[in-house]
């Protein structure tokens, strides 16, 4: 009976699986690009995505002033207004996520590469001041004032003691990333509008069924996700392959030391990589809210783990691999859940990963981003 179920719902599962897979793929791009350039699992990327969904939420409710419901119904928009809202919110999410990724890079990673700068020192000093201020008061305003006062002198100290030119062990990056991830998620949870609740985002796009494909409803939001994801990935591929900065990224991915000697500004290449990865996560955040219209402070964690799995599955450091890995993972989860039951979804995802890695130890398409080393 169970295989009949997958037979009957096959296309339904396929459509929703691909949509989810594309969102995985967009998030996976951030992991894969940073990994390609730095050989670092950017563990905090999941929170960059989370920040992006909050960007969408703020854009929709504050900038465009849309309520969650209007008279108990969804606040659907149409025509030019809808297009403006969608584009505006996408841009907002990409800006917020991109900025988040840049701050993250300069604060939590760059000092570990032995290239710490004033910006990172100021942020770290501010955070130190902030946690120190918790000692004196619970009032947010006072906390911020104390932190601001401490920031200046402490930043001067921090800048002086950043290790210049000494690379930290790779595991240190991982733990710094985990710390940053934890701090960002907790900041979202603690200083959100309400503590730790799920936020619904207003649904502006009516989820019309465009066509019925062997019993599967192809909804407009799925089509937009597919279209948007392909567009963003094409743009990214063109950027990496055709532009000067893209060439820099590939050069650093291949051999950072040689690239440096040949005059590539490695730090700015890394910054651009983070910016691009963040922007992709922002795009993913928009797609995600379009389909699921919700977010929460911890929404990034599981999606991040899955997306990283997708990146590894496709071949980490490989942009096309992220796309393929995302779709394979999304489909495997859906088919697997239909066959074995939803409680085994994650088990299936990881078994697929294990089996693929058994036969292709560097993922389906292999590592790449400028044909990096194996």
């Amino acid at each position: 009976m169970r295989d009949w179920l997958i037979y009957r719902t096959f296309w339904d599962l396929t459509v929703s699986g691909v949509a989810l897979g594309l969102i995985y793929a967009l998030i996976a791009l951030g992991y894969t690009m940073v990994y390609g350039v730095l050989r670092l699992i950017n563990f905090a990327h999941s929170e960059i995505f989370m920040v992006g969904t909050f960007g969408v939420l703020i854009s929709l409710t504050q900038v465009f002033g849309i309520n969650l419901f209007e008279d108990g119904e969804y606040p659907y928009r149409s025509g030019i207004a809808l297009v403006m809202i969608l584009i505006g919110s996408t841009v907002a999410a990409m800006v917020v996520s991109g900025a988040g990724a840049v701050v993250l890079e300069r604060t939590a990673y760059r000092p570990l590469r032995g290239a710490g700068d004033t910006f990172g020192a100021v942020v770290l000093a501010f955070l130190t001041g902030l946690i120190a201020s918790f000692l004196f008061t619970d009032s947010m305003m006072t906390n911020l004032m104390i932190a601001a006062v401490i920031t200046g002198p402490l930043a001067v100290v921090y800048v002086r003691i950043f290790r210049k030119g000494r690379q930290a062990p790779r595991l240190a990056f991982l733990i710094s990333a985990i710390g940053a991830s934890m701090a960002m998620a907790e900041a979202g949870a603690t200083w959100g509008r309400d503590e730790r609740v799920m936020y619904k985002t207003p649904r502006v796009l009516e989820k019309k069924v465009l066509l019925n494909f062997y019993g599967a409803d192809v909804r407009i939001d799925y089509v937009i996700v597919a279209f948007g994801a392909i567009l963003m990935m094409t743009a990214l591929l063109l950027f990496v392959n055709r532009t000067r900065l893209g060439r820099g990224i590939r050069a650093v991915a291949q051999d950072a030391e040689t690239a440096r000697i040949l005059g590539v500004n490695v730090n700015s290449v890394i910054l651009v990589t983070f910016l691009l990865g963040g922007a992709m996560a922002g795009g993913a955040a928009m797609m995600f809210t379009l389909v699921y219209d919700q977010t929460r402070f911890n929404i990034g964690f599981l999606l991040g783990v899955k997306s990283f799995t997708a990146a590894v599955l496709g071949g980490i450091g490989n942009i096309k691999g992220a796309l393929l890995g995302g779709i394979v993972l999304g489909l495997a989860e859906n088919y697997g859940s239909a066959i074995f039951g939803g409680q085994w979804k994650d088990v299936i995802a990881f078994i697929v990963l294990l089996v693929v890695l058994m036969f292709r130890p560097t993922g389906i398409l292999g590592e790449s981003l400028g044909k990096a080393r194996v």
Partner: protein
Amino acid sequence: MKKSNLLRAGAVLVSLSFVVTACGGSDDEASDTTAPAAAATCDNPVASIALQFPETGDAANLGAPMLKGATLAINEFNAANPDACVTLKTFDTQGDPAKAPAVAQSVIDDATILGLIGPGFSGESLAALPLYDEAGLATITGSATNATIQEQGFKVFHRILANDAVQGPAVAKYIAETLKPASVGIIDDASDYGKGLADAVKAAAGDSVVATDSIDPKAADFSAAVSKMKDANPEVIFFGGYYGEAAKLSTQLRDAGVESTLVFGDGVKDQAGYADAAGPAAEGALIACPCKDGSADFTAAWQAAYSEVPGTYGAEYYDAANVLLNIIKAGAADRAAVLAAVKAYDAAGITKQIKFTANGEATEASTIYMYKVTDGKITYVADIK
């Protein structure tokens, strides 16, 4: 080289010492925190009661109404009894059984604490109750509904609402006798609470169950479960889990064109978390609950204090706190006296007449109340006897 080494060590020390010194100031405010409209008016408390619940962590949204309900009761009591006021001390477990024993020990070590409301969840209850039992500290939970907790026969355990073993069959009965569907689909969230309830409904619903599935509550996408339900197209879908997932699931089911009647358990009875969040998708959903809407006075008081409608289990925690407060007011001055008085307690609360069986279960816990989302509001429809 040497200098920068020293400086670096210095910086770490400075940063850490900020943190370390921070604890000094926080010692005294540690346990009696975050009471909105604080119980700070209580200068010479005669006693204190403890609340063990998830204040932080993933489940903190479920913990918030527990604190609000208990705080409301304390504040009203202290306003009425300024000479014999009582403090509420809160203990955060994050709902994590691993942290529960340490928290329980610290509750026990505080001699001013005469009784405990909570623990909030079943898992932390199982980890903490052996300690409370040994110490003879009476506990009254308003939310841990797992039916297996009392298998161990704890002396101190009391539960102010019906457990899952009562609720599950009652829901199945309501579905069978009132909705009379030809087919039922059942989904659970793979949690202790959700799966327990869903299994109980499934067992009682018997042959009419045509499709079952589990979802991962941390995931955002439930499309496999939705496809399954869409394919089976049952007349009624029961979901065992909490309101956050119920809202997501309702939305996704409706988006996929599934028109089945949705039925939920008590974890979904939350106006803001479910009905307000799911909007049109929640319309017409049925929610069973061993809990009763508090009195109009209670709702008004809650509204005045927090500018929102009472949350899930808020009324139960209000009642539970009042049981202990009334006992302390009546003169019980040590833990043994409080425990004896809880066992003998028999008075009206806002949710029911509160009286416990020898087992610690509420005597009036056989009734399950059915609610329905109508025009976006969770409203009472019927008793299920």
